[in-house]
C-alpha cells in the first residue's frame, strides 16, 4: 500500500471518529416522554408532588385493610406477623419505644408512596389509586392522626401533620445542629 493511501485512510478514520464523538460522548440513551414513563414514575415527595388523582376515606379503607392487609399487619394494624403500623405515639423517648407509621414516620406522603409501590406484599401495584388513599386514610385514622371521616386525596394528604414530623436530624452533608 502506498504512503499516500495510508495517509488517506488515517484521515478517513480520524474524521469518522471525530464525527462519532462530537456532541455528547456516546448518546446511546433513547429519548422518552414523561407520559411514557408514567407507570414507572411512582415517587412521591413530602410536598405531595407525584400523588395521583383520586381519594379515599378511612371507612372505605377498612374494607381494603381487612381484605388485603390485616392477615400480616393485624386486625387493626397491631399484633400481626409483619409488624405494627399503628400505636406507639409519644413513646420515642422511652427505652420501650414503639416505632410505627403513627409514632415514627415524619411524612404521610411516604405511606402512599410505599403502599402503592410495595404492598400488599404478594401483589404490589394491585390496588387502585382510590384504594391506596383509602387504606392510607384508615392507617392514619387508626393512629388517631386524622378523623374517621376525613377524605385523603392529593391535596389533603400532604397537609396531614405527622406526630414525629420534627423528629429527624439530617446528617447530610454534616449533622444538623439540634435545637
Amino acid at each position, binding site marked *: 500500500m502506498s504512503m499516500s493511501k495510508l495517509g488517506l485512510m488515517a484521515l478517513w478514520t480520524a474524521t469518522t471518529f471525530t464525527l462519532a464523538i462530537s456532541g455528547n460522548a456516546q448518546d446511546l*440513551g433513547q429519548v*422518552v416522554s414523561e407520559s411514557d414513563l408514567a407507570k414507572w414514575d411512582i415517587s412521591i415527595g413530602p410536598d405531595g408532588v407525584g400523588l395521583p388523582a383520586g381519594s379515599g376515606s378511612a371507612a372505605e379503607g377498612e374494607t381494603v385493610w381487612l381484605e388485603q392487609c390485616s392477615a*400480616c399487619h393485624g386486625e387493626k394494624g397491631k399484633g400481626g406477623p409483619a409488624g405494627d403500623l399503628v400505636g406507639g405515639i409519644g413513646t420515642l423517648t422511652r427505652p420501650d419505644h414503639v416505632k410505627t407509621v403513627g409514632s415514627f414516620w415524619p*411524612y404521610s406522603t*411516604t405511606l402512599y408512596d410505599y403502599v402503592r409501590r*410495595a404492598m400488599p406484599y404478594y401483589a404490589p401495584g394491585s390496588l387502585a389509586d382510590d384504594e391506596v388513599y383509602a387504606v392510607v386514610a384508615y392507617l392514619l385514622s387508626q393512629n388517631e392522626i386524622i378523623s374517621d371521616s376525613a377524605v385523603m386525596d392529593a391535596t389533603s394528604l400532604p397537609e396531614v401533620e405527622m406526630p414525629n414530623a420534627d423528629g429527624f436530624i439530617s446528617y447530610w*452533608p454534616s449533622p444538623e445542629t439540634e435545637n
Partner: protein
Amino acid sequence: MTSTKSLPLGSEERAAGNGLISRRWLLRTGLPAVGALGLSSEMSRAEELRVPDWSSTPGLDLTSYGQPSPFENEVVRPTLPLFPEGIGDGSGVSFTPLEKLAGTITPNGLFFERHHSGIPEIAPEEHRLAIHGLVERPLVFTVEALLRYPMVTRTCFIECAGNSLFNSMDEPQQRTAGEIHGLIGNAEWTGVSLAHLLNEAGVSPSAKWLVAEGGDAAKMSRSIPIEKVIDGDAFIALYQNGERIRPEQGYPMRLVLPGWQGSMNVKWLRRIKVVSAPVHTKDETSKYTLLQKDGKSRQFTYEMGVKSVITSPSPGREPGAQGLYQISGLAWSGAGRVTKVEVSADGGSSWAEALIPDQTPARALTRFQLPWVWQGQSATLMSRATDETGAVQPTREAWYEPYAPNQLFHQNAIQAWAVSSSGGISNVYV
C-alpha cells in the same frame, strides 16, 4: 536461611500483652522460630507418603462453569429470613461467611444478600434504565446500550447498614464472625459512570438529589445527594469480579455508591429521577435511621463507619494445639483508607499494631494480621481500626451512648472474642 532460633524473645518481639508478637516479625524474617518464642521446639513426625488414586488415573472432564471443591461445601452463606413463612418470603438476609474466607475479595456466590421482596428474574433484553425528572431530555437505556459506554473498574465494599446488628442486642449472641458481621462483601465492580449518563440527559441547575429505584417487587427506592454522583464516585455496575452481576446482586445492573449504606446501592436499578429535595422514602425514614435517647432520630447517615473484625481465631476457627497462630481479620471504612489496625489479646489493656499493606485501598476491605502465641491461656481478642480521617472504631459502650435501645444500624463497635483455656471462643461484650 537466617536462624531466628537464636533470637531472644525480647520486648521488641512481644508487642503487647497475652502473647501478641510484633508485626515486625512478619516484615523481617517471616515467622519467629518456636524456640525464640519459648515454645517447645520438639517437631512432630509425618507418616510415609503414598500415591493416592487421583494421581494414578485421569480426572474428571472439563467443566463449563467451575464450582468449589465438594470438600468445601460448608463454605456457604448462612441465610436468615426476616418473617415467618408466607408473610414476607424473600425478605431477609444471607451472610458472607467471613471466617471461612481469606484475602479481601468476596467470591460472587458468597457475597451477602439483603432483599426486601426476593430476587427478580430479570430478562436483560426487557430491562430498561430510565433517567428523568429535572433533566433536559428524559432518557431510557437498554442494557446493550450501557455495555457500549467507557467502563470504570473499582474495588469497594458494600455493607448493609444493618450489619453487626446482633451486637446491638442486650446479650452477646453466640454466632460466627460472618453471622454477626457478614452483611458486607468486597468486589471489583465494573460499569458506567452515572455522572456520564446524567450529562447525556442534561441535568437542570435546580437538581440537588436523585431518587434511585429498583425493578424488584419492593421497588427499593432511596434519595441520593447529587454530590455523590457529579464529581463523586457513583457508578452503575454491570460486572462483579469480572462476570456479569449475579441475580441476587442486582442483575443486570446495580448502583454502586462506594462507602455508603448498602441499601442505597440499589439493585436491579431501573430508574433515576433527578429532583430538588429528598423524597423521604420508607427506607430513609422508617428504616435505616437511628433513634437517639432524646427521641430524635438521625437521618441520611450515609457513610459506613470505620470498623474491623478478627475472623481468625473466631467461633468456628478455634485454635487447636498450643503454639503460634496468626490473628487475621478485615478492616474497612466508608470514609476512605484504613490507616491503622490495632489488636489486643487482653481485652483492651494493651494493644499492638497489626500488619496491613503499605497502600490500603479506599472504601475497600483491608486484611490485617499479627502473630499470636497461645499457650492455653484465656484471652480476649479485639481489633480496633483507624481511618484516614482519624476516626477510630468505638467501643460498644461509646457507640451506644447517643442511641435508644435496639438501634440496629451503623453498628461499628469493637468486636471482642473470648478464648477460653480449652480454646473455645465466644462473643463477649467488654
